[in-house]
C-alpha cells in the first residue's frame, strides 16, 4: 500500500436478495486511492457503481472484503467511531432536489451536518454557511431559500457546499452532473476541480459519462455487472482500451465531429445488458462481445496485467 493512500478497498462484494434470487451487485472489487486524487467509476445501469460508492461510506454494508480509510479498517469500527469518521467522507448525489429536505431552508440544510457533529457555535456555523455558499458561487441570500426556489445547477452547488461543510477528505460524487444541462454541467465540474485543488480533496467520481470521468479522473475503473472489467490510469485507458467492453463504451460516445467527414456511423453492439439476477456464465460480457471465444462462455477470466497499473479481466489478454 502506497504510503499516502487515503483509501484502500480490498475484494469487497455485495449480494442482495431479490425475488428469492441472489443479485451480485458488486463482486470482488479492489482499488487504492491516494489523497488528492480522483478515481472515476464508469458503468451502465446495473453495473453496481452506485452500490460500490455507498459501500465505501458504509451506507451499504459489504458482505466481505476490507475497506481501509485513513489507516482505519472501516469494517471493524463501531457505530460511534464510524460517525466521527464520516465527517471525513461525504457524498454528493445525482438529484440534489431529492437529497435536500424540501421544508428546510438551504442555510439550515448546510448547517445541519455541522450541528449534528457539534461543530462550533450557532453563529460560527452560520458564518461558515455564508462562506461555503460564496465558495460554490452562490449569493448570501440563498441561505434563506427553499430547494424548490432554486434551479438544478444551484441545488447541486448547495449539495456541494453541504458536503464541504465538515472539511471532508473524501467525497463520493455519484453522477453529480447527469441531471444538469450541458452548460451547467461544465460549471459544476470546473467547481469540483477547483475545490479539489484548494482543499486537497479526494474524489470517487461515479458516472456513466466517460468524457466527464476522463476529464476529472487520475484513474478509472470500468464496471460491468458488478465487476471491474478494466482499470487503468485515465490517459492509458483512453489510449489503450483493452477490454472489449471498454472499447464498446468508447465507440458509443458521439462527439461533435471536428470536420464533416469525421461523422460517426451508428454501429451498434449486439444484445442488451443482462439482468444481474441471472448473469451469463463465464465472462459476463461474452453474449455481447464481438471477440467472444469458446472459453469465454465457460470460464471466468482472471484479472490480467496489461502494463503497470493497467488491468483487464479478459481471456484475450495474455
Amino acid at each position, binding site marked *: 500500500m502506497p504510503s499516502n493512500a487515503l483509501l484502500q478497498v480490498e475484494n469487497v462484494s455485495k449480494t442482495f436478495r431479490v425475488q428469492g434470487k441472489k443479485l451480485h451487485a458488486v463482486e470482488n472489487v479492489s482499488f487504492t486511492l491516494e489523497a488528492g486524487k480522483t478515481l472515476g467509476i464508469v458503468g451502465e445501469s446495473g453495473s453496481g457503481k452506485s452500490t460500490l460508492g455507498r459501500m465505501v461510506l458504509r451506507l451499504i454494508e459489504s458482505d466481505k472484503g476490507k475497506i481501509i480509510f485513513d489507516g482505519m479498517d472501516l469494517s471493524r469500527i463501531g457505530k460511534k467511531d464510524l460517525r466521527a469518521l464520516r465527517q471525513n467522507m461525504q457524498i454528493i448525489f445525482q438529484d440534489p432536489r431529492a437529497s435536500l429536505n424540501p421544508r428546510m431552508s438551504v442555510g439550515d440544510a448546510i448547517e445541519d451536518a455541522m450541528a449534528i457533529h457539534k461543530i462550533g457555535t450557532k453563529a460560527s456555523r452560520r458564518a461558515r454557511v455564508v462562506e461555503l455558499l460564496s465558495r460554490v458561487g452562490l449569493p448570501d441570500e440563498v441561505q434563506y431559500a427553499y430547494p424548490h426556489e432554486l434551479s438544478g445547477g444551484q441545488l447541486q452547488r448547495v449539495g456541494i457546499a453541504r458536503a464541504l461543510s465538515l472539511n471532508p477528505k473524501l467525497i463520493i460524487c455519484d453522477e453529480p452532473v447527469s441531471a444538469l444541462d450541458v452548460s451547467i454541467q461544465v460549471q459544476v465540474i470546473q467547481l469540483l476541480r477547483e475545490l479539489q485543488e484548494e482543499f486537497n480533496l479526494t474524489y470517487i467520481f461515479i458516472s456513466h459519462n*466517460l468524457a466527464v470521468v*476522463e476529464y476529472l479522473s487520475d484513474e478509472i475503473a470500468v464496471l460491468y455487472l458488478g465487476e471491474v472489467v478494466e482499470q487503468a490510469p485515465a490517459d492509458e485507458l483512453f489510449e489503450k482500451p483493452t477490454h472489449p467492453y471498454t472499447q464498446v463504451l468508447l465507440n*458509443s460516445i458521439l462527439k461533435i465531429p471536428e470536420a*464533416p467527414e469525421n461523422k460517426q456511423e451508428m454501429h451498434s*453492439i449486439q444484445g*442488451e445488458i443482462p439482468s444481474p439476477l441471472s448473469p451469463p456464465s463465464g465472462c459476463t460480457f461474452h453474449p455481447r462481445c464481438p471477440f467472444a471465444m469458446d472459453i469465454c462462455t465457460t470460464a471466468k477470466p482472471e484479472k490480467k496485467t496489461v502494463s503497470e497499473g493497467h488491468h483487464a479481466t479478459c481471456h484475450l489478454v495474455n
Partner: protein
Amino acid sequence: MSEPLLSIENLQVKFSRSEDEVYAVNNVSFAIHENEALGIVGESGSGKSVTLMSSIGLIRENGKITSGKALFQGKDLLKLRPKQLEDIRGRDIGVVFQDPMTSLNPIMRIGDQIMEAMLTHQYASRKEAFNRTIQLLQEIGIPDPHSRFKSYPHEFSGGMRQRIMIAIALACEPQLLIADEPTTALDVTVQMQILALLQDLRRKRGMSVVIVTHDFGLATNFCDKIIVMYGGQIMEAASTDMFIREATHPYSIGLKASIIEVGNKGKEISPIPGAARTLTEAPTGCPFAERCPFKTERCLNEVPELRAFGIDHYIACHHAEEVASYAV
C-alpha cells in the same frame, strides 16, 4: 428545392402559470423536407420539445398556441379539429417519446398496441395488421416475434420498449417520424442500438426524421440539419456540415467550447457563465444577451431576426459578422 414536408411558420406558444405566463416559443419558423433528418437541439427550457410537439397539436393543458402555422401537405395542422389531427398523427406522422413506459399501455399486449395503430387509422385489415406487426417486430429487432407479440410492456427492457414505441410509430408507414429525446433515458450502448435502428429504418424507407435532443454529439452525427434553440427562439439553423465547420452564434460557439468530450483531458474549459432564465414577458431583446460576451445595448433592446448568413446557414445575432471574424 422541393416543397417542404412540414413547414412551421411564426409559431408562438405560451404557458399560463398560477401567477404569470411563460413565453415558451417565440416566433419560430423552420421546415423539414423529404428524406431529411433534422435535429432540434437545446437545453432544458429552450422550447425545443414544445416547438415540435405543439406543431403537431400535442400541448399541455395550460399551453396555448397564440399564433403561427404548421403546414403539412398543404393543411395547417393548427387549424384542424382534434379528430382530423389524430388522423394525421399516427398515420402520416409517427411520434416517439422519451419515456416508453409512460406512453405504452401497461395492460395491453404489445402486439395489440402495434396492431391498434393500424386498425384505428384503417390502414390495414385485421389479418394484414397482424402480419405486419410480426414483420415490424422482426424489423425492429425483437427476437421471436410470435411469442413476444403477447408480452406486456413491463416484460421488456427500456431499450426494447423504445423499439416497440418505434414500431407503433412506424406501423402506418409515416412520411415523417418525430422523436422527442428518444434515447435520453437509455444507457449509452443501448442508445447506439436505437440510433442505428432509426438510421437504418430512415434509409430504407426514405422517411424524414425530426429528433429533439439536448445532446449536440447525437445531433451532429445523426442529423443532416441542426436547429439550435435558446429561450424559445432559434439561435442558429444550418446544415450539419456547416454547423460543424462554422457555427457562429455565440451560444453555439460557447457550447462547443465548453462541452466536455472524450479527449478533452487537460484542456481548459470555459463554461458559459450564468444560466438560462424563464421568459415571463414577451422577449424584447436577444434571450442569450445576458450570458453573451458580445452583448451590446442593441441586444437588450431589439430581438434579433433569424437571417441568412451563408449557404444553408441562418443565424439570429446582431453581431454575427463580428463574431465570425473573431472566430477566425
